[in-house]
Structure formats: C-alpha cells, structure tokens
C-alpha cells in the first residue's frame, strides 16, 4: 500500500514539475522579440511547419467535405431539406471540423517532426554547443518554431474549410444534384462571420499554440537517446491530440454553450 502511495506521489510530483517546466519554457520562449535574423528563421519554419503541411490538409479537407455532403444529403433528403446541405457542410466545417481535424493533422505531421528535430539536436549536443557559443536556443530554435505553428495553423484551417466546402459542393451539387443556388445562398444566410468564422479562428489559434508548445517542449525536455526521442514523439502526438479534443469541448461550451 505504502509503495503504491509513494509511486502515486512521485508520479504527481513529476507531472507537476513537468507542467511547471513547460510553463516557464513557454513564457521564456514566446516573448523572444523577433529580430531581422529571427524573421528569416521564422519564415523558414513557416515553410517547414506550414507550407509542407498544405498537401495533407488539402486532401483531408476535400475528402471530409465530400463525406459530409454525402452523409448530410442522405439524412436531409428524408426531410425534404436537401437545400440546407450547404448550411450543414459550412457550419460543421467552420465551427468544428476544420479547426479540430486540421489541428490533429498538424500534430501528426508538423508536431511530431518538430519534436524529433529538436530532440535530435539535443541528442547530438547541437543545443548545448549553441548555448556555449553564446546563443540562446530558446530564442533561435524554439521561438521561431513556436510562432510558426501559432501563425500557420489558422491559415491551414482556412484552407481546410475552403477546400471542404468545395468538396461538399462537388458531391452535393455536381454529383447528387442539389441546386447550386440554394447550396451557396443557404450557406451565406446561416454562417455568421463573428459567431462562426471568428470563433473557429479563435479555436485554431488556441490549438496552434498548444500543439506547437507541446511539440517543442517535448523535443527540448526529452532524454537524449534514441528511445527518448521515440517516446517524446509519441507523447507529442498523443498529448496534442487529447489537448485539442479536450480544449475543443471547453471552447465550444464557452462560445456556443448559451445559444440554446
């Protein structure tokens, strides 16, 4: 019994100290002011983190929009409400699916790569040598990646939403024969810029910060061995995915909880 209590206490202390380290890490790195050199580093990371995630976001957004239209049509047509297909596709994507699925894809593609990259730098003493040269790795390595993730995920979310709506159009209008005018006009009438689009963007900003924070912290804090890198990469994907899903509920409750 005592052994279990000791183990529980140790695990709790480890978790608390890890959260504390992660918090300090975020504060120290996010306030690194961008210099001209920092801007170039950030641009390079925007390419690595953002541009290189566009393909996976495009393909996923297209298929999710198409599936949404197909499923939505089979339900709505039973009520004679197939004109509302555009509204259903757009609201589902803008409020929920675009921010959440883009963030999950981002965690899997860019998050895991960030953890592995920073972890390998740590294992090969590149971070230590940078410190010894008098360069703060938080400023040079972590901050550009953190900001790149924070900025690029909302952009990827917009791309996801736009392509998803177009995918819904392809299936709903071009294939299943929903009237194009009602697809677009119902969407235009029901989607509110502030309530829906802006709230979706706020979600993706929060997800961008949290996913990238988890990814860079796991890379920076890992045990510098091959096993350590493998575990940290897995942890990034698991923690980031769970954080996105959990935060999505909290944010949805805050944003839309009083509508009913």
């Amino acid at each position, binding site marked *: 019994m005592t052994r279990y209590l000791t183990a529980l206490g140790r695990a709790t202390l480890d978790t608390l100290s890890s959260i504390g380290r992660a918090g300090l890490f975020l504060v120290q790195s996010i306030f690194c002011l961008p210099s001209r050199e920092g801007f170039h580093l950030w641009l390079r990371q925007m390419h690595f983190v953002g541009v290189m995630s566009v393909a996976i976001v495009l393909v996923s957004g297209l298929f999710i929009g198409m599936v949404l239209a197909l499923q939505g049509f089979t339900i709505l047509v039973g009520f004679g409400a197939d004109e509302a297909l555009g509204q259903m596709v757009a609201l589902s994507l803008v409020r929920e699916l675009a921010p959440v699925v883009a963030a999950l894809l981002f965690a899997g593609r860019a998050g895991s790569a960030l953890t592995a990259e920073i972890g*390998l*730098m740590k294992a*090969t*003493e*590149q971070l*230590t*040598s*940078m*410190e*010894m*040269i*008098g*360069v*703060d790795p938080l400023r040079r390595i972590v901050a550009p990646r953190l900001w790149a993730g924070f900025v690029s995920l909302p952009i990827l979310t917009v791309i996801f939403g736009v392509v998803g709506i177009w995918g819904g159009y392809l299936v709903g209008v071009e294939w299943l024969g929903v009237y194009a005018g009602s697809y677009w006009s119902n969407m235009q009438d029901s989607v509110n810029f502030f309530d829906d689009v802006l709230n979706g963007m706020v979600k993706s900003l929060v997800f961008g910060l949290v996913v990238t924070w988890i990814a860079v912290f796991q890379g920076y804090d890992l045990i510098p061995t091959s096993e350590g890198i493998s575990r940290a990469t897995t942890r990034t994907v698991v923690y980031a995915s769970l954080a996105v899903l959990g935060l999505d509920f909290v944010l949805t409750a805050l944003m839309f909880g009083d509508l009913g």
Partner: protein
Amino acid sequence: MDDPIMVEVKDLHFSRGNTDIFRGVDLQIPLGKITAIMGPSGTGKTTLLKLIGGQLAPDRGQILIDGQDVHKLSRRSLFKLRRRMGMLFQSGALFSDLDVFENVAFPLRIHTELPNAMIRDIVLMKLQAVGLRGARHLMPSELSGGMARRVALARAVALDPDLVLYDEPFVGQDPISMGVLVQLIKKVNLALGLTAIVVSHDIKETLSIADYVYIIADGRVMAHGTPQTLDVNDDAHVKQFVHGEPDGPVPFHYPAPDFFDDILAPAGQFS
C-alpha cells in the same frame, strides 16, 4: 603556480540523484596555458566542463572565470561571458543543417557586425589552420569523425576566445587524426595565446601537450602537477592511472558477491 589564474573552482560539490559526483573539488586554471583534467571514465570530467560553462549549477562551491562567479550571473550575462569561451564537444556537435563554412561562420555572424567578405576571409583562415579549407562546402553528415572534430575546433576558435574547453578531443580517433588534433590544439594555444582546459583520459596524448594536470577520482582532486612530476608520483591511484595498470586501487571488477558463492549458488537463487 605563479601564473595569473583564468578559472578558479572552489570547494565544488555536485550530485546527481543520490550519487555524489564532486565532493569538494578545488582547481586553478592558469591563464594562457593548457591544463588537462584527467581521470577514469565516469568520474565526472565532462560534468565539470558543463559546470564551468554554466550549463549545470553546483550544489555548493564557486566557479570563477576571470573573477566572475559563473553561477551568479544573469542568463544574459552568462551568454555574454560564453562569447569569450569556445568549446570542442566530444561529438563535434556541428549544426546539421549548415555546411562546414556556415558552421564556422555561425559565431561570427551572430556576435559580430563584420561584412560578408571579412567573415569569408576569417572562416577560410580558420579552415586552413585545421586543414579543411577544401571541405568548406561539405555537410556535417559527409565528414569523418576526425574531420568533424577539426571543423568543430575551427568553430570553437572562430571568435578568438580567451578560454577553450576541450571535451575528450581524442576519443575514437584513428592514429593520424589523433596526431593531427594533438598538434592543432597545441598550435592553436600557442598562436592565439588562449587558455585551454582539456578533459581526457588519453594519457600519452594529453600529457604531451599539457602544461599542468589535475587527476580527478572519487569526487576529489587526487593529484595535480606538471606532467613530469605526475610521471614519477608514487601514489598508488596516480601510478595506476598514469601507467594504465588494469588493477589497483580502482578495481578491475565491478562490486559483486564472491565469485565461487555466485557460481555454486543453488538453482532458484540466481539473481
């Protein structure tokens, strides 16, 4: 030692978990000289370099570099102090996304406002000194271990630092690369007049270039002196280490129960 002191370690205590690494280490590193810190594997030599570089904090004691207490400096002041230091890592620790030229140019680009033409000249001079001017366009993944360490040496002295820390510079090198590195460390020290701390357990090579030697074991300084005085030291620990004897005060065997008891233990009592 009458030379002025560049680095002073006073009553250094450091532990990891329940293991004491250092239990009251005192060192004085003279200015402009090569000082070797030697000792068996696992005695914390690399840890000592990390403590001197401010990457680890001691439990007790002080480390003064040029009179400044490394562990009382703010993060900004510590990074400023590190600009006067170079470090050669055991693995080379070259930045894998930059080629040889850019690796050596890195500290110059970060810490100076020199024009590109001048940075190019300085980098080529440093690479010429380590014999790798022709390899400037290679990526770190294309270098052999010895070449990577020579590039790392060129990078460590790119800013003409006052103090260079060498972490096991000879480990895993073939005889030619090892000879080249020994020569280079000595030449760089003489040419730039810098203070060098060489952490190593390669006795012959290190003693051939060191002006002063500290031998560390069991968390303390076991002996210190010039290479000549250590060579004739009668202490059993020092003799075993300096002459590379397999058994002595540092036992060959890891602590274990009696061999025969272990062999004859009945089945089911294996552990």
